[in-house]
């Protein structure tokens, strides 16, 4: 009942894709050799210099029109870049949300002025966005947000608070989902998206430290922050439709199942001389799962290239559910296959990856839609009423 009209049978990567892969691998090898980055498993590292280098090579905003600094390449080419960066555990956090969410939203809902202001800078790897969705009392139940904007002369005055906002302390701007009319019967109505300059007076960020002390998440407070009319994204009152429209792209990408792959690779190389039958079966089982998840992700990316993009939000929810659990299965398999102690410092690569993957393991199935919410989405499609 899912993937009913998705094309798996004639899906092929376009010609020339091997050249793109070779360029990427050469670039990544060169960056690694120069000590420009060290692979880490987890949230990804925030590295503006690396993002700029990617931008200079045309690997950000790949599918966007040229007039906005994009490169008019296919979603499958973008897929290839994404998976190569993740396989190498490259530091992509700085531009990640801007490339994946902000750009497509601006292209779909933004004004010409907004597109010209932000997109070329994002594609160059110089402009970073945070995404302001969750609030202290609105996690999975996102439509219940209370941050509100009231109309004033020439714009809106924003008050409220966002939480779990990744990299808000380093980003330039933020998409804020807020209420522009009071919470009524239908809570999906009356929501809007504002583009907030994070240097605006009245914006304050405070770290929410991750369980290992890392600063990645933030609380962001808005205290009478003025947002001019020309920084309203799309239509006032249409915020819910706007934020949910990008979910298929957001939930189905390789970043939902590849985060622990460097650990899998390290285990394979460590086993080289000592893989017995059961070890081979475990490695092979994970490979079968990986290849199958990748096939679903690739097929969804391929559908984005169509004239009329089908609604694949449910299928994407499924990829995220299966993919984020798969990431943990790798971590567990590593423990079964290699006798080692997880160590953040001073150990082997496997020990470090295992430590990072372990610490990171609870978050994949929470951020961007919890397992339970994703499964409710699938059940709804099957005919369940919630």
């Amino acid at each position, binding site marked *: *009942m*899912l*993937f009913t*009209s*998705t*094309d*798996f*049978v*004639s*899906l*092929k990567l376009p010609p020339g894709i*091997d050249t793109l*892969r070779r360029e990427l691998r050469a670039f990544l090898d060169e960056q690694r050799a120069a000590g420009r980055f060290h692979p880490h498993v987890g949230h990804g590292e925030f590295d503006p210099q690396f993002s700029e280098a990617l931008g200079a090579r045309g690997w950000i905003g790949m599918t966007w029109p040229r007039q906005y600094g994009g490169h008019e390449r296919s979603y499958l080419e973008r897929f*290839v870049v994404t*998976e*190569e960066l993740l*396989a190498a555990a490259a530091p992509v956090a700085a531009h990640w949300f801007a490339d994946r969410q902000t750009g497509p939203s601006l292209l779909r809902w933004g004004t010409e002025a907004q597109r010209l202001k932000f997109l070329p800078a994002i594609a160059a790897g110089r402009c970073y966005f945070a995404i302001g969705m969750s609030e202290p009392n609105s996690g999975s139940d996102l439509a219940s947000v209370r941050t509100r904007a009231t109309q004033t002369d020439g714009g809106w005055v924003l008050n409220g608070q966002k939480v779990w906002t990744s990299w808000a302390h380093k980003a330039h701007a933020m998409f804020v989902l807020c209420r522009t009319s009071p919470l009524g019967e239908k809570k999906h109505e009356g929501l809007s998206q504002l583009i907030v300059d994070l240097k605006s007076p009245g914006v304050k960020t405070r770290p929410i430290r991750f369980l290992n002390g890392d600063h990645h998440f933030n609380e962001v407070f808005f205290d009478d922050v003025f947002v001019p009319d020309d920084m309203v994204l799309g239509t006032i009152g249409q915020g819910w439709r706007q934020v949910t429209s990008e979910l298929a792209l957001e939930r189905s990408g390789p970043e939902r199942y590849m985060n622990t792959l460097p650990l*899998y*690779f390290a285990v*394979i*190389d460590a*086993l*080289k001389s000592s*893989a017995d*039958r059961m*070890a*081979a*079966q*475990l*490695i*092979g*089982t994970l*490979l*079968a*799962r*990986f*290849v*199958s*998840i*990748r*096939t*679903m992700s690739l*097929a969804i990316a391929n559908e984005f290239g169509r004239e009329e993009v089908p609604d694949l939000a449910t*299928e994407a929810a*499924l990829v995220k*559910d*299966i993919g984020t659990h798969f990431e943990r299965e790798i971590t567990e398999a590593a423990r079964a296959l290699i006798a080692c102690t997880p160590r953040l410092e001073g150990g082997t690569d496997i020990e470090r990856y295992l430590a990072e993957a372990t610490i990171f393991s609870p978050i994949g199935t929470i951020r961007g839609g919890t397992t*339970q919410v*994703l*499964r*409710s*989405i*699938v*059940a709804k*499609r*099957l*005919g*369940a*009423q*919630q």
Partner: protein
Amino acid sequence: MTEPSLLVAAIGRIFEDHYTSDRLQDAKRGAWSEPLWRTLEETGMTLLSVPEEHGGGGDFAEGIEALRLAGKYCAAVPFAETALLGAWALARSGMSIPSGPLAFAVAPQAGAVEVSQAGARWRVSGTLRDVAWARMASALVLVAPHAAGAAVLCIPRDRYEITAGENLAHEARDEVRVSAELDASSARAGNDVTVERAWQRGALTRAVLMCGALDRLLELTVSYTRQRSQFGRTLIQFQAVQQELARLAGEAAIAKAAALTAAAHIDDASAGLYVAAAKVKAGEAAYSGAGIAHQLHGAIGVTDEYVLHHSTLRLWSWRAEYGAEAHWSQKLGAQAVEAGASALWKRITEA
């Protein structure tokens, strides 16, 4: 193949028409569905995906989709063996395809056979186990090792003996004893049919059949949980039930994605990777999918009267045919470890 073709829609209706409790019960007593086979033959569907010059029609993708529907509706006929396996091996070897249903076997996996050749005379002898539909077939197509790679032999029904056997779902899986001389019109060697490719194709057919069965499990389970009420609500209104339904849908979807991708790559260099992935995923989905479907049906699901078990018994049987998960995952894993991570990543991404 974004919309099912008219041909596939037609064949789907035929399978569905024959999906009746009488037929399913007959099949449980070891019978095959001769009326279904006759209908398929009359409409020219038994050679779907076989090249036109060999008397077939339709394309490979249609053959695969038809096979998925055969799995969905528990079709008790050798559709996979005839259209996608036997006729494939014969056509690829430039041999003519006999009329009637075909059985198919791959040696040495199915058993030890000796194949020898002296000029135009061929000799084949040996015993094969668990040969699908052998007793109903008009001929057995055997792919076996040969000095020139592999031999493809077409052995008429009157040249082999059988001892009837069956899988868990009571589908005919017979022991075949053969000791026969064949002439050159019934045997070829050295074509692009290899033991490995034949085995991969066999595994692909099982993965595709299993996708069909998983689809049926999902339909039955959704429909049952929408009808059945307990504690004053339909089962599907319980979140605990919804979460399990979503898992079942997920298993069916990933198995389908894997199997259809394997079908797309069956003739290229990455067939080994994708077929192995598809058979492993189908097996895992059979385990968890059948578990969820039965759990959500409660006790009614395990009765002889209710239809669910026809699909779950087939899933559990097909899971073991042409290599279970252990076989394919070990092969994948051993290759991965041998090649190393960097070569593995290239293999995945160049596929």
